């Protein structure tokens, strides 16, 4: 019997990951390249932030000063330079995004792998548990957890990471289950190969690209979740992130001051990174799971051309 969730998963027909697949299919797509460049740009800015924006909160001008040649994006409600704040914010937002995504991918990947590989009772127990967690609303849970457990960066990373693993677990489980049924895995098992060999040599390499694609998508979710938590005043008060810049602008009444430059840029940064991660993650998933590539219905039609001249001997 299939539940609704399983029926959605059943549509997945994973493809064999063969050498060169990522290079030949994923990296050729323009949307992957654009997405990776955007992510790369922000990562570089984040890494260089101690140099580019050593003291971002320093007051450098009047409060809500409009953009000028000295301060390209003006100043915020504390008179600090917006460009510097954004660069400093990139550091924390990306840190939260990547770390929480890695935590999620690790938890989800392990549960999915164990569940799919061992099957049977292990599978039933782990998936029952996963289903409970899936249905409990994730964002409110994060907000509640953040409200209860405090406002350090580590806590926020852990809270996001520990809550967002469910879809990963389901996805990886489905993939592992299908790879496990592959003939070459069955044969290696029949030969007496141990679990570590089966997982390490045959299953993980097949699953890893999908896990990476999923992690990239998780980065987007995690950055998003950070803005929620921070917006409700639950972030680390000593740190600057994009979510915090949006909160500050709201609290400091940037709206009443018509200071669009204090509100628009942090949201644009979040949207850009989330969009970039989504594009990269989706294009990777699609090339690993090319069920969208055959369409029997297309607005374009086949063409009719003149017959080629018969080739005379």
């Amino acid at each position: 019997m299939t539940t609704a969730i399983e029926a959605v998963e059943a549509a997945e027909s994973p493809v064999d990951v063969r050498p060169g697949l990522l290079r030949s299919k994923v990296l050729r797509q323009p949307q992957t390249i654009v997405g990776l460049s955007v992510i790369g740009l922000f990562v570089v800015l984040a890494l260089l932030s101690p140099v580019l924006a050593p003291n971002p909160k320093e007051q450098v001008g009047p409060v809500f000063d409009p953009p000028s040649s000295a301060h390209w994006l003006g100043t915020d409600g504390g008179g600090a330079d917006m460009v510097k704040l954004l660069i400093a914010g990139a550091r924390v937002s990306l840190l939260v995004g990547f770390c929480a995504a890695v935590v999620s991918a690790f938890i989800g990947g392990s549960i999915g792998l164990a569940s799919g590989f061992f099957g049977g009772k292990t599978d039933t127990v782990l998936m029952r548990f996963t289903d409970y967690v899936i249905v409990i609303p994730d964002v409110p849970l994060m907000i509640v957890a953040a409200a209860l457990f405090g406002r350090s960066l580590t806590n926020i990373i852990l809270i996001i990471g520990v809550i967002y693993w469910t879809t990963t677990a389901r996805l990886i489980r489905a993939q592992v289950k299908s790879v496990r049924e592959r003939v070459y895995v069955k044969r290696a098992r029949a030969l007496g190969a141990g679990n570590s060999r089966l997982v390490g040599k045959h299953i993980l390499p097949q699953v890893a690209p999908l896990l990476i694609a999923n992690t990239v998508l998780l980065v987007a979710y995690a950055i998003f979740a950070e803005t929620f938590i921070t917006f409700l005043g639950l972030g680390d008060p000593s740190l600057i992130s994009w979510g915090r810049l949006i909160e500050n602008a709201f609290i400091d009444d940037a709206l009443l001051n018509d200071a669009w430059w204090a509100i628009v840029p942090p949201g644009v940064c979040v949207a850009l990174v989330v969009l970039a991660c989504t594009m990269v993650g989706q294009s990777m998933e699609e090339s690993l799971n090319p069920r969208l590539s055959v369409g029997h219905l297309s607005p374009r039609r086949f063409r009719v051309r003149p017959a080629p001249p018969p080739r005379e001997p």
Partner: protein
Amino acid sequence: MTGLDYIAKRVLFALATVFAAVTLNFILFRAIPGDAVQALRCQHCTVQFKNALRQDLGLDKSKWEQYKLYLQGLAHGDLGKSVRSQRPVWDELWPSIKNTIPMVALGYLFSVLFGTIVGVVSAWRRGTIVDKGGLWTGLAFYSMPPQWLGLMIVLFVAGAVGLPTSGIKDPTLGILGDASTWDLIVDRLRHMILPALTIGLVLYGEYALIVRSAMLETLGEDYVLTARAKGLSSWATVWRHGFRNALLPVVTLGALSLGYIIGGFITVEYVFSYPGIGLAIVEAIDQRDFPILQGAFLLLAISVIFFNLIADLLYFRLDPRVRA
């Protein structure tokens, strides 16, 4: 297995999940350092008051006793008392819920309507300008933090269309003379539109993307080729053989994304000072009024579980294969 089995299984699962949510709720709120009373922030919160409150809330009993008391209370519909106002949580939250439901419903309707239309058309006209437009607007709204989108709407849209950006009722209404019911309804609607639009746009992005990809997947199925071979026009193929099949994943994924939607409306209500359950949560966080937070979270969790059950049952209606 029969169709009855499916229903029985889904209902049991929903009940079990409610129980899990209840337990999780209890554990979370007991796992914090100190207790619910210690963190309380209010003017009359003296030490004596707090101790009395502890006794009143049963916090001096063992954890197991507390759990049993908590379950007993819930069984009688008792969500506890607000530590700040001393009123029952349900009485505190009920007005907010009444405000939230129509607003979220309006936004949801907007997103489902436009998301579905754009998703279907986008998949049907795959690769054309129409598709690209649908895909990119969908992706764009999907990528924006809801609270930020709300601020953008306040900043750039509200003024232009002359709609209120805060609260739920015009404070001047009724001062100059009795307001008619009609005026009250219009005023309510005017306050609802912008937050609903914000939620609607964020969800629109999500649904347009889900519907589009579900449709594309369906259009790759063999029976779509059969439909074309039968001579169906491309629109008839989409409508008769694509849409209903694509609804299956949409129903499930739509229900699963509810957790995210709720996260969205908490921050959106905050931006628009819309006195719904989201704003109640924000205020409870601010005042460390944990019973309210606990009650609100439980209500949200139960509503999400409920809608997932609805989705499962809808699935049962839509897909004859689970009815077998």
